[in-house]
């Protein structure tokens, strides 16, 4: 994929994540920070499908943005065909692994499989 397209994805995921993370943080503040972290409150949040969907979208957006940012930093430090391929594919694997691990939590709590 061309770097120009990757950077558009990088910026797009950033802007979308800013809006959704703001909602995520506001949910903590409207409930009261300590109360919002109580077990029952967190379970209620996860079971509310629109909120669980939003968490899933945030997970995907930030995983892509975060590991692409790491890829950019690593490619600034060192270049070379094999190194660049290793970094790029390593980041793709990390993105997939983090999304799968995070999705597991969201899906299992939302559907009551715990």
């Amino acid at each position, binding site marked *: 994929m061309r770097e120009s397209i990757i950077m558009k994805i990088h910026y797009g995921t950033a802007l979308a994540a*800013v809006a959704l993370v703001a909602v995520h943080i506001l949910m903590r503040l409207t409930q009261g920070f300590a109360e919002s972290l109580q077990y029952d409150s967190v379970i209620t949040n*996860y079971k509310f499908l629109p909120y669980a969907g939003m968490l899933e979208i945030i997970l995907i957006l*930030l995983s892509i943005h*975060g590991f692409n*940012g790491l890829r950019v*930093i690593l490619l600034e430090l060192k270049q070379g065909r094999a190194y660049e391929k290793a970094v790029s594919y390593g980041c793709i694997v990390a993105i997939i692994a983090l999304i799968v*691990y*995070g999705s597991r939590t969201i899906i299992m709590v939302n559907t009551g499989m*715990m």
Partner: protein
Amino acid sequence: MTNQDEHKEGIGGMINPRRYGVERVAYLLMRLSGLGLLAYFIGHIYETSTILKGQVGWNEFLELTQTNAGHAILAIVIAMCVFHTVNGIRVMLGHGGIGVGKPARPDYPYTPASQNIRHKIGIYSAIILAAIAMMYGLTVMFGE
């Protein structure tokens, strides 16, 4: 001591914030905050997965984070998040050609048009907003 070419300084040269002005400081802070936020994000995903262990598991992990040190780390995360967001928007605007000035003939002393007062204000605003957000976060966390 040998006179080393500044282009061969490696990572030390890349992260040296003492040269090239506040833009280099912003460059460095952008990368540091990005790496910090990625580390926090991975930790946050692991932290939230402890809810699968039930109420006991969740409360045990929550006790680890609801300490003074935990709150201090979260305050730093808030500051990194705000700086990364505000400075990121500045960088995006710059990449889109907004606020970088008009192209002109390069005359001595070759002042870069893109490193102008608008972007410097953007960088300082990001730092100030990050500090304010961190203070607000500390007030919320320690106020309860």
